[in-house]
């Protein structure tokens, strides 16, 4: 295995093809990251929502007990 580029500059420009290669890489990276971050955020939201529902239920039961 040999490193194909002599300098960082050459690696970035890739003989004029750098724009294509790096833009493909950046866009793919963003979308793939989105596919992992999105479920993480949704999971947090769903957990919080369920916790809120449980709290509300508990309060309702407590107020019912007070009335009795």
């Amino acid at each position, binding site marked *: *295995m040999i490193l194909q580029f002599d300098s960082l500059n050459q690696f970035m420009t*890739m003989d004029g093809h750098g724009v294509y290669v790096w833009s*493909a890489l950046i866009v793919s990276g963003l979308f*793939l990251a989105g596919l992992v971050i999105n479920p993480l955020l949704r999971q947090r939201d*769903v*957990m919080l929502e369920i*916790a809120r529902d*449980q709290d509300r239920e508990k309060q309702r039961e407590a107020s019912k007990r007070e009335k009795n």
Partner: protein
Amino acid sequence: MNWNWFYRMGSPKWFFYTTSRWLPWLGVLTSCLLVTGLVWGMAFAPEDAKQGNSFRIIYLHVPASLLALAGYFLMATAGAIGLIWRMKLSFMVMKCAAPLGAVLTFLALFTGAIWGKPTWGSYWVWDARVTSMLILLFLYLGVLALQYAFQSPEVGNKASAILALVGTVNIPIIYKSVDWWFTLHQPSTIKFTEAPSMHPDMFQPLLVMILGFYCFYALALFMSVRVEILHRERKTAWVRDLVSQEAKEREGVNS
């Protein structure tokens, strides 16, 4: 034959707890494979004699396209299992596979378009391979849209499962399109029956990237199915226990 494993696999609770144990390992494995494959492919693989450095897009384009196709098979199979055995979990997998596949198909088309500019001289060509991939994107979007087109989610599940199954006919067409028609798209690099038409120095990083994308697909699919499970099973005892336990832990950290 003992079918217990099959029914246990259909249990959302079992799926959730099993993937809880797998996810950290899968995350580490995915990152290692993708980083290794990218560094190898971008910096160490030799440059292509005809296409120069633009060929390095292959390390994104081929894995994304492969997973777009494999993901469609998975989605259609999950839909079929859901229709036949009325398995809730199976429909959840189908539902979560649709946006995942749509993004991968989009990426395959996008990286292909970028690759097309320096290679073919144009971003877009109505070539058999490209057009059939575009149809795949619309199939994914159709399955996604049908989910929400009905009042009851059960009807939506069945309708999109049927669309997914009918659309399966497109998969062999995409796969064989480069052989059946005279296309601008180059023939497959990787074949089932022959050795790859690529030098090992170029092929090995591609293999690492493909494995990485498979792991990534599993990771993203599991994560999204888990959210679906929590949402659908929010009234069950095990989800309520899980949530109150996490809430307690959060309070413990805060205080």
